[in-house]
């Protein structure tokens, strides 16, 4: 019974195993990046990037069809242009960076949809917008695994400067820690992970697996490292649960994975030990000292 519910589908169907492996690769690397985005109060930036890459992906699609390489290169260029462009516009005009980002990504999203619609049918558009977890092919799988490996390597090397740059950027600058360079590396990693996720979840939900576990992790740990582990754990749980739910209830897989992550987030807000609603309302007797 339990076997049929949890293991059977994966044992039986190769495409489900591939989907699971792809989502697990995303789950170990993307959520820790999400944790840093949350700590920098940039929770919406990943969302912006996911939409911002669409014109690049569309250009790749127009030139080479549904090729992972072409779409990834296009998306990478577009994503970096949106990130750097927003910074440059806000510096040049004295405006706020978040408003420049919002303007750029709205334009990018509309441009991307127009480009795809003009050159392809609604099937391809749906694929780009919502992805197809069950249609993950070898190149896409390799890209997810490669990005995950690179991200974990980079995070383990750059952990200390990233934490410092988040906590006290002035101190980092005064001590000559080159915070700007680390921040740029970090944003490049975010773009790469959004691109990897987009193969499975599409532009609309690519960041679901990055941000929801990261936001939920705040309720499970009190250190950056603890939050990173918690976020990965939550993402792994949500990936497996989402794929199973989608199989048993016959609902689309991408949204099911993101909804599972959303369910874990809701449970964390309610029952998480750190600042959870329940933990706050349970009036435990204060300590003696």
């Amino acid at each position, binding site marked *: 019974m339990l076997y049929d519910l949890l293991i059977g589908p994966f044992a039986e169907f190769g495409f489900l195993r591939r989907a699971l492996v792809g989502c697990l690769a995303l789950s170990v690397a993307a959520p820790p990046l999400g944790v840093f985005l949350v*700590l920098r109060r940039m929770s919406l930036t990943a969302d912006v990037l996911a939409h911002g890459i669409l014109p690049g992906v569309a250009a790749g699609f127009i030139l080479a069809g549904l090729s992972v390489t072409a779409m990834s290169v296009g998306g990478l260029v577009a994503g970096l242009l949106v990130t750097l462009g927003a910074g440059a516009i806000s510096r040049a005009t004295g405006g706020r960076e978040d408003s420049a980002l919002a303007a750029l990504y709205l334009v990018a999203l509309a441009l991307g949809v127009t480009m795809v619609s003009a050159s392809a049918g609604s099937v391809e558009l749906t694929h780009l917008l919502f992805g197809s977890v069950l249609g993950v092919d070898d190149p896409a799988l390799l890209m997810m695994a490669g990005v995950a490996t690179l991200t974990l390597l980079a995070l383990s*090397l*750059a952990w*200390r*400067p990233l*934490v*410092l740059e*988040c*906590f*006290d950027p*002035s*101190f980092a*600058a*005064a*001590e*000559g*820690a080159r915070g700007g360079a*680390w921040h740029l590396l970090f944003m490049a990693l975010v773009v790469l992970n959004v691109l990897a996720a987009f193969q499975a979840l599409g532009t609309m939900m690519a960041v679901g697996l990055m941000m929801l576990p990261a936001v939920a992790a705040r309720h499970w*740990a*009190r*250190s*950056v490292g*603890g*939050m990173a582990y918690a976020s990965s754990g939550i993402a792994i749980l949500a990936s497996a649960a989402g794929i199973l739910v989608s199989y048993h209830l016959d609902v689309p897989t991408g949204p099911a994975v993101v909804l599972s992550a959303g369910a874990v987030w809701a449970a964390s807000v309610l029952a998480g030990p750190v600042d959870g609603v329940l933990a706050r309302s349970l009036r435990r007797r204060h300590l003696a000292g």
Partner: protein
Amino acid sequence: MSEAIRLRDVTLSHDRHPAVHHISGEFAPGSLTAIVGPNGAGKTTLLRAIAGLHPVDEGRIERPARIALLPQMTALDRSFPISCLDVAMLGHWRRCGAFGAIAPAGRAQAEAALEAVGLGGLARRPVGSLSAGQFQRLLFARLLVQDAPVILLDEPFNAVDARTAADLLRLVREWHGQGRTVVAVLHDLELVRREFPETLLLARDPVAWCGTEEALAASNRLRARMMSEGWDEAAAACGRAA
């Protein structure tokens, strides 16, 4: 162990409006100086410029390589998930950088610094659980670990209770005794008179920079108040040669 900070006709500005206007002078090695002046007088900007965090518009600042800055507490996210020990150990940055290991001796040094500021038992605590006063003590512990010959303090005793202020002031005296150069932005003139031999009275333009008693004379303070009146939208470009 100290070196001097020299200001040569320095002008600092926000959006072309000068925040600090044509100031020259020297913080002598081993001196203990207070910077006082009305709000908007450019005190914080000057401190940040000395630390290398604000661009120098005109003129030149000669400064030693190793300077430690205590920022205003409000500039930091006090709910950040980091432990007190980790914050204190950030003071080792110049020695260990982004990748270097922190030797057990360095760790012991950070623990000793926490002990010295009265946070001995709280090394493992996240900073989110500290009060404002304890957080300021923690930032002083990081200064102790940094062990720099020049220490800049931006409103170090704001929002802390009398006992914390007294404890932190004791550290400032120790630094002075060790021959370090200490510069502090302060508002409490009584405290300045009592503890700081030198004072720079700033109101965009330097009003006085000398012994504290003389700098804080009534005539100087009146002049500072007159000069601090605001931001002139229609100000012409300054004619004084740089």
